[in-house]
């Protein structure tokens, strides 16, 4: 019997300091066992439990796209004991991975549709996965317009800065990067994500929108999207909850009868409106 509690073993190949406050690092991993890599199949959206013997484990959204073969990426905010322990790991260290866990973004439904991604702060991780996936040469033609609205508090807190510059140059992705407050070098947009969303005003026709960010951003973005005419079935969110097992047993991440770890983390606004307000 497959033991769902046993982590797969991976090596940290690369550590990238993402933000100027030195709180978010990205870790690029590769599995020690080729078979594990082959079995670790996913569509953008799920998470995995990262694990350090002696320290424990915690769930993190998968930031890499399945199109990035042989590499698994996680961007981790240093915020507690376990994330501190991960931040202390160096390239070459061995780390445990349990996953992929949870459901994924409904990319099949996105086909022949426009897709708008609205994100703030370090919630951008699984949306980086989704964006990379959709703009990959094998997939790009499946989707119509792709719009990405991404904001951070300041230019130094933006994730994946090199990639954002690359995406900026492409004409098949409509990218809007914004910061709450710019600095002397900042030439991009300044403003909160909901306001920028209103300004960009993506058409709701034939369009799915995925929103991921801090609760306050989501709270003010949803009304903007509704005003633009997005029905709740085409507004998609990804939730976070405290989790332990990640497989629907340990009892802490449920919202009503749904387990965020197993039935989520991706839900439509229509689904969420049927669930109790406890998240």
């Amino acid at each position: 019997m497959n033991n769902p509690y046993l982590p797969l073993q991976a090596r940290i190949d690369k550590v990238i300091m993402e933000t100027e406050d030195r709180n978010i690092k990205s870790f690029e991993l590769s599995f020690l066992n080729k078979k594990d890599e082959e079995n670790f199949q996913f569509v953008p959206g799920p998470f995995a439990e990262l694990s350090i013997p002696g320290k424990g484990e915690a769930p993190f959204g998968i930031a890499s796209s399945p199109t990035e073969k042989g590499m698994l990426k996680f961007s981790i905010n240093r915020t507690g004991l376990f994330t501190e322990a991960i931040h202390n790991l160096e390239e070459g260290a061995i780390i445990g991975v349990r996953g992929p866990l949870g459901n994924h973004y409904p990319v099949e439904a996105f086909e022949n549709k426009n897709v708008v991604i609205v994100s703030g702060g370090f919630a951008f991780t699984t949306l980086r996965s989704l964006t990379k996936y959709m703009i990959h040469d094998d997939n790009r033609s499946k989707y119509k317009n792709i719009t990405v609205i991404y904001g951070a508090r300041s230019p130094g807190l933006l994730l994946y800065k090199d990639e954002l510059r690359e995406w900026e140059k492409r004409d098949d992705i409509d990218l809007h990067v914004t910061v709450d407050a710019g600095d002397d070098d900042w030439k991009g947009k300044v403003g909160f994500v909901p306001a920028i969303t209103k300004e960009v005003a993506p058409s709701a026709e034939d369009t799915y929108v995925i929103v991921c960010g801090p609760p306050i951003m989501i709270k003010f973005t949803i009304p903007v999207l509704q005003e633009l005419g997005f029905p709740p079935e085409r507004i998609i969110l990804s939730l976070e909850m405290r989790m332990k097992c990640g497989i629907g047993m340990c009892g802490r991440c449920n919202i009503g009868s749904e387990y965020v770890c197993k039935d989520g983390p991706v839900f439509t606004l229509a689904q969420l409106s049927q669930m109790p307000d406890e998240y």
Partner: protein
Amino acid sequence: MKEMIIKKDALMNLLTGRADDCQVFAPVEVEGSLVIKEIQPGDEITISSMNTKASIKETFFPQRERLFSYDLSKPGEMKEPPFSDRKRIVFGIRPCDAKSLTVFDCVFKGKDYPDPYYIDKRDNTIVIAVGCNEPSTTCFCSDTGAGPFSTDGADLLLVDLDGSYLVRVVTEKGESFVNENTAFTEAGQQQAETRDAIVDKATKAVHAQVNPDKVKKKLDDGFDSNVWDIIHEKCIGCGTCTYLCPTCHCFDIVDETTGTTGERLRIWDSCMYPFFTLHASGGNPRKTGKERMRQRVMHKFKYFVDNNEMVACTGCGRCVKYCPVNLDIREILKQIEVS
């Protein structure tokens, strides 16, 4: 259902005799409390009208269970605990505890992620439950779909006929256990009549108090009900109910190390504790006792029913009996029913 008879002393001999080739778990009196433990030579199996203080949970889902062990000096190496095929016998639990195994089966034997630790124990165990001739005042098993002689979760259900047990053969596992032992003989008409009288008397003794169907209907749109503002007020959040509950299965996963060796453990946790759902960000979806009490009641009588068509309560009454502030789940459910 096939029924057999066995003399009580013959069954005790059979059980203690099997302690060599399998693990036998049964109620034993320890320091004035009735507990279920693995029988050692000299232990006296005690079946009294009292239920065991703790439930059978520990025997299938231990409070502290090693998931794997490791050596910090050897990164990437993990050692699973041995999964043995050693047979186990659980004897003398009450139908409420046997029923709780059917709740656990829903959680740990699911098709998506079967839990090898639970399944190893469950599949290697034969469950011999004993019906309750004298239910206690805290019992409400008949309300939760079980009852003092429910066979749910048991392989054999015994009815105490004084000097002997009438044995109801529930499963194939139970059938082969009976066939392997010559001490079992076919039950006769007279014994069946005695059984009927006992079952009838006991069933009448468990007074209907709560109606889970009606409660469920209220809970279906009762998340924002005012009732939650009231019923949690007395609760001190000690978690005793969750630890003694035969169906509560929330757990935490933690690491423990000594020197360079360490273990990853699964330990019981409780939805009554504020840390249970505390996010690293500081946010907490279940901030106060109100949300936590709501979660516990909702999980047992709505969410679990939605997902598994079964209430996650067997009416054993332990939470009623041992709550330090006398909170009574039956009263809570009645309050919800009329809210």
